[in-house]
């Protein structure tokens, strides 16, 4: 295997890993940025998205259709959670939502275990996505390339939504100056609910693309939640641009470390986080919030 082929493998692997991390982390960041809720059940919603995708595909739905439907189902679940659990304690300290969403995480994990069991699941892919594609001397799985494309489409769609639509502009304004938005007669209840639903849609998308990429199991969300926190800490709390940079940086560092110094890969990622926290407490782009 040539040097170019190895480099292509590493770059593509890091982009795929970074892409999945990004979608989950951005969802978490949007919920926090717009409604000041640190949703510890976000990883479980990601897992629920994967199981929803698995069930839809197993029932005969096309993978791409499942990629559209499953996130919407997770958004509905998210809206119910927001109304029933978050709203009653929204005006209290952030500790209340932390504890409640922590409990919710175990509740959702229990539900998943109850309905789908403990055994790992894999999402069946269309035949063309099960092939490998020769690229610069290496053979790379087509569905991983499709995953990259999906990540790019999701992120472009999100940027267009937040930047070009009235609703997106309201959401962004509410993130920076919620009092002003409220004074303009915009119902903040809808803003908070919309933010939560949007975050859940992203968790759902990440879940469905992770299904064939890794494996689906009841605790898949736990590790992803921790990785997402690392992304938003490195990127800066509440900073979307920072999260994008952080996700791909982590993807690259982790992939390189796994390739060259396998045993220390995760140590290196967490050391990087510690150094950035120490010297750049507002994240890579200095846009993060202090709370």
């Amino acid at each position, binding site marked *: 295997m040539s040097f170019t082929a190895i480099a292509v493998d590493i770059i593509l*692997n890091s982009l795929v890993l970074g892409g999945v991390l990004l979608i989950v982390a951005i969802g978490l960041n949007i919920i926090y940025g717009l409604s000041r809720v640190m949703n510890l059940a976000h990883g479980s919603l990601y897992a629920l998205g994967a199981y929803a995708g698995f069930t839809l595909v197993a029932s005969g739905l096309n993978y791409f259709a499942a990629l559209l439907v499953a996130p919407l189902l997770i958004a509905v679940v998210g809206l119910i959670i927001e109304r029933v659990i978050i709203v009653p304690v929204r005006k209290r300290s952030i500790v209340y939502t932390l504890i409640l969403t922590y409990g919710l995480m175990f509740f959702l994990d229990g539900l998943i275990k109850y309905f789908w069991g403990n*055994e790992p699941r894999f999402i069946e892919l269309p035949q063309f996505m099960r092939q490998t594609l020769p690229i610069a001397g290496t053979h790379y799985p087509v569905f991983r390339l499709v995953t990259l494309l999906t990540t790019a489409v999701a992120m472009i769609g999100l940027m267009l939504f937040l930047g070009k639509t009235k609703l997106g502009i309201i959401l962004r304004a509410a993130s920076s100056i919620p009092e002003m938005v409220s004074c303009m007669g915009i119902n903040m209840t809808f803003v908070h609910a919309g933010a939560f639903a949007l975050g859940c849609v992203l968790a759902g998308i990440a879940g469905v693309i992770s299904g064939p990429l890794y494996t689906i199991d009841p605790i898949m969300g736990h590790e992803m939640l921790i990785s997402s926190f690392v992304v938003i800490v490195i990127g800066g709390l509440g900073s979307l641009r920072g999260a994008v940079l952080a996700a791909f940086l982590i993807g690259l560092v982790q992939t390189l470390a796994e390739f060259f110094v*396998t045993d220390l890969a995760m140590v290196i990622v967490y050391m990087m986080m510690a150094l950035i926290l120490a010297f750049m407490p507002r994240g890579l782009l200095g846009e993060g919030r202090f709370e």
Partner: protein
Amino acid sequence: MKKAFLTTILCVIAGAFLMVPNQAIAKDPVKIGVIVPLSGIVAQGGEEMKMGIQMAAEEKGTLLGRPIELIVEDTQVKPPVAVSKAEKLVFKDGCKALIGVFSSGVGLAIAKNIDRLNVPFLTTHVMTTKFYGLNPLVFRSGQLANDQTAVGNVKGILATPDLKDRTYYVLVHDYAWGHDAGQRFVDLAKKNGIKIANEDFDKAPIKTKDWSSYISKIKASGADGVYIALITNVIPVFAKQAYDFGIQKYARIVSGAAPGPVELEAGGEACVGIFGASDWCWDVDNPISDKWESDFWKKFKTIPSDAACHSYVGAMNLFNGIEKAGSTDPQEIADALRGISFNGPYGEVRISAKDNCMRNSAVLTETKLAPPNPYDAKIYMKVLHTFPAEELGPPAKWN
């Protein structure tokens, strides 16, 4: 006459008073602590272990004339959690023996505390070689140890033309069992002229989900064989990702642990072509095995797994040991377990009196698309070779 009548009545009443506590004692169950992982990465394996032990308890019915009560606790595959659960089972619930445990790390943690717990501890799944002669109260009866598995796999590689002349890349899970399994294989493979691509083998964190970096390393190494010592439930996950990258087109996978049948089903065709030495799989063909499989399927409607079978055999050895001891005294049970044997689905499983660990025959299997079968399984482990117990052997110092 009147005096004799009164004496008889008094004797009957006294006898009745003496009998009451004895009957109460006789009805007290013998409590056995079952410590298995029911959450986390190996939860499915833990459920199957629980089923195997439950089946043995039901088949046995009573111990020392008393009912058997299994008290199940979840280790979460975390050594500190497992130790505190073991303490609860012994000190609070009054369990007379502990059985189960999936991970070597968890098994070693409990073994370290066994003198304080003062009950016999029989593991059905800990594979580390450190268990040989570890403590008079610690036993292994169930899955082959790492050295026995390595012998089986190396013999299997040498006996299988498609595996023999390959260079193996070694990848293990980063904890006690993985390190031990990897080192045993590398040492034995080198002695037998099998080429190893990375003697300083890769140790992947247990929580690894994305194996793409490791697969890139395998591709870059030029190896055309992969030896994995990954937790059983993760094997199909790795195999699936390796398949996605096209590794199986030119390389063969040999595994230091048998993949669970439920997980094989989930992995589908990507799991075809995994070789490995194991004690048992449902392709093992003998009347005891066939009956056990059939009973297991009827009871649980789950594909009979090696995890369940190991646990069943281990539990039968433990229960027979308690009966042989004739009491629940820990030292007496331990003495009775040394040298005991049980003829089960994979033949005679004997616990050595020298090192407290089992000896049994094993099979080399290859995962293939399954022929029509009662379990509706699509993938199965086909038996390629059978190795007698004396060929697999433990370390020389115990022989």
